[in-house]
């Protein structure tokens, strides 16, 4: 998946998107953390994407992104600002748990 693409991913996969811009310091830090989380992730069926909020502004606004960095999980804005690794993992786990129960 190309960087910055807003194309929805396969519905079987969990889409985790970091919205950032090149010009904000917090975004650069968030981008490094995001890349580290992606490389260390133990979750299966996850697509990690980093999206340039300026290039994909309609997509960002449709999810309610009002500042960067921001993270959407499964098509919903979950964090504005970069969460700790622990909080992000918990949010992913919560999403997988709720999705699993709703699929039953």
């Amino acid at each position, binding site marked *: 998946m190309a960087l910055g693409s807003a194309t929805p991913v396969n519905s079987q996969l969990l889409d985790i998107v970091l919205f950032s*811009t*090149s*010009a*904000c*310091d*917090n*975004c650069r830090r968030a981008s490094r953390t995001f890349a580290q989380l992606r490389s260390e992730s133990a979750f299966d069926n996850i697509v990690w994407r980093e999206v340039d*909020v*300026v*290039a994909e*502004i309609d997509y*960002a*606004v449709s999810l*309610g*992104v*009002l*500042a*960067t960095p921001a993270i959407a999980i499964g098509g919903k804005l979950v964090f504005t600002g970069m969460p700790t690794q622990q909080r992000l993992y918990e949010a992913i786990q919560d999403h997988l748990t709720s999705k699993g129960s709703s699929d039953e």
Partner: protein
Amino acid sequence: MNSYSIGKVARQLTLSMDTLRYYEKIGLLPKINRATSGIRLYSDKDISRLKFIKRAQQMNFTLTEIGNLLQMRDDPQHARDEVRQLTGCKLQQVESRLAELNILRNELTLLVNLCAASRQGCPIIDKIDEEH
């Protein structure tokens, strides 16, 4: 009860005095009370009605439509069916406009926040420059 001269109302609502007289002439406003000297004295209720007319005009409603909406505003429980339908239709238009404005507000908020977060200038302007 408060009363206001036509000049004061015109300034307050940024409408011309001719427009105020015209609204009265075509029945959008009731017959305005007059002082013994003959000058018009607008009440708070008249001002409220004028504000409604102005808001409706900003939504591009016609004066005829606004007249019908004012009938509904004056007596909603006894409005004719066509006036009720018109009001429902106009409500949908207002809600649609609100949804569009909400998206625009969020987009502008994002842009302002992006510029505020950037030490190296405004990424939005940079982006526009890149595209031209």
